[in-house]
């Protein structure tokens, strides 16, 4: 078991190295934009993994959290000239508040309440962002969000920004691995696997769930802030329920509860629209059917294919050895 895990970390590191090498070979600005988006998505999915992947509570409001993070950082840094470093911390703090404030009412009971409240929450955020035109600019959006500098390096080009986001993502990836293997991570998984057993051990399920949701919200808000400073323009029309759903799809396609799976999911789902573009009008429906089939027939995601293939291979070699 330990061998598989360490193999997975090697592949994970290799994936990051390959991602880091891509801008050297591709100069097309469009692809660099997609790369940035991909890495930011990865970061959000790491967060979502805690609440939906490990704890097993469906969060359908990632778009609302992401939007609040983006607006907080964008508005504070543009209107008040505060350093984006501080505003990003503010965004993470907003994420913390969302996690506590929304997690408390919806997670104190068992059931589907979290999916419904998060869905409603992201709708509320979208309605406010669209209609508070004097603050958020409505559908016209917030323009001229500043980029920032790391030490002496000004992150003025998309490639430089990509390396910055990649480093942040790698750090958060390591943090995720750390949390997953700590006491917290084991508690999260226990809630998903057997609620009654964990209750009989005297642990407070409510607290564990709220903690998982808070971490998810903090990751999501940071992702939103990074997106705002990358794109330098945000509008309320991009934070729809479809965005929340596509984050859950990334989580499911890659492999639920598995960090390497999250990376794969974010890469595949961000690239899929580019790969399936030739389908034209039929693109969306093909995509949805593919995802539905994956949800039903491959519940553990693409990552489980490796295990299955290995199993098959070992079976074959065992048969050969028997001869």
């Amino acid at each position: 078991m330990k061998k598989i895990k360490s193999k997975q970390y090697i592949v994970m590191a290799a994936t990051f190295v390959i991602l880091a090498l891509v801008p050297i070979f591709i100069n097309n600005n469009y692809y660099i934009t997609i790369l940035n988006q991909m890495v930011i998505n990865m970061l959000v999915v790491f967060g979502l993994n805690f609440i939906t992947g490990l704890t097993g509570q469906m969060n359908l409001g990632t778009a609302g959290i992401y939007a609040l993070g983006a607006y907080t950082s964008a508005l504070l840094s543009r209107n008040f000239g505060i350093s984006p470093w501080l505003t990003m911390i503010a965004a993470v703090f907003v994420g913390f508040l969302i996690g506590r404030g929304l997690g408390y009412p919806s997670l104190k009971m068992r059931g589907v309440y979290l999916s419904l409240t998060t869905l409603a929450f992201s709708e509320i955020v979208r309605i406010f962002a669209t209609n508070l035109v004097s603050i958020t600019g409505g559908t016209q959006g917030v323009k001229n969000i500043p980029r920032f500098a790391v030490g002496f390096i000004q992150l003025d080009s998309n490639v430089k920004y990509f390396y910055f986001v990649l480093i942040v993502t790698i750090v958060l990836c390591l943090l995720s691995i750390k949390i997953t293997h700590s006491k917290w991570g084991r508690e999260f998984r226990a809630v998903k696997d057997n609620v009654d057993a964990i209750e009989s051990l005297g642990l407070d399920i409510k607290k564990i769930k709220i903690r998982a949701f808070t971490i998810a919200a903090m990751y999501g808000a940071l992702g939103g802030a990074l997106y705002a400073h990358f794109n330098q323009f945000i509008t309320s029309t991009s934070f729809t329920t479809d965005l929340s759903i596509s984050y859950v799809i990334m989580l499911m396609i890659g492999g639920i509860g598995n960090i390497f799976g999250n990376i794969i999911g974010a890469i595949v789902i961000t690239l899929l629209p580019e790969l399936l573009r030739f389908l034209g009008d039929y693109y969306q429906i093909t995509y949805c059917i593919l995802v539905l089939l994956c949800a039903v027939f491959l519940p553990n995601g693409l990552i489980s294919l490796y295990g299955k293939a290995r199993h098959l291979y070992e079976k074959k070699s065992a048969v050969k050895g028997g001869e």
Partner: protein
Amino acid sequence: MWEILIQLIVSGIAMGFIYALVGIEYTLIWNASGVLNFSHDKMITTGAYIFGGTYILGLGMDFIPGIIVSLITVAILGIVIAKVIFIPLRNMTMIYTIMATVMLGKIIVEAIRLIWGPVPFSVPGFLIGTVKIGSTVISIANIAIIITASICVLALQLFLYKTKPGKAMRCVAQSRKAAQLMGIDVTSVMTVSVIISMIICCLIGILVSPLLNITTTMSNMIGLKGFAAGIIGGFGYLPGSILGGLCIGIIENIASMVLPSVYKDIVAFVLLIIFLLIRPKGITGKTR
């Protein structure tokens, strides 16, 4: 002043009945199979498209035969969806069932876009006009909604309490395992629930088509508020969702006197969160 208030209350009751019907429609599936149907708003849209797009504008039928034929069509569609989606999903974990129904909703939207095209339309001459009672003006669409929804609720109660399949549905809602042990065919109960749910969805779609244009996003808000109605009344308890729906409809319409009208949609969600904080089991205090 008073006329405006009465007008708002009447249209609030009408919208409240719509939310109540939405609440009933997904509660039926939830009780029968434990799957929360996140594609229900798209099923409402499908009903409106089948009625308006195909039978009225496409085939030029009259309204009454058009309604009957569309109800039969969605019932057949309901059998297919039950067999293909809901029955295989009944034993899966919650996150997968939610994801599967969400994706089903997206597939329905794309299918609608491919079949009927992306341009919004409305059904001309359907439930248009107003009636004057005293000095208050009430639109015919609202009256039609109130009457149809009341009939629908009464018929459902009769079905659930007087007929054998209805009693089986109530048994399954109470305990699926016990019902199965008592020899009730749970999968056929699920199929019946999905069919009834689809018929109610189609009715909702037809009833709201005079109020909203027929588009792929027409029922997003109605669907979400239906969920809120369920929680406010008591999740999984049919009379609860009727009560919750009426509450939301009336309160949000009265709130639109004070709040700017763009924020009307928020009222239901704020109520939802307040109820979860103070009284998570809803007004009736029953969940199932």
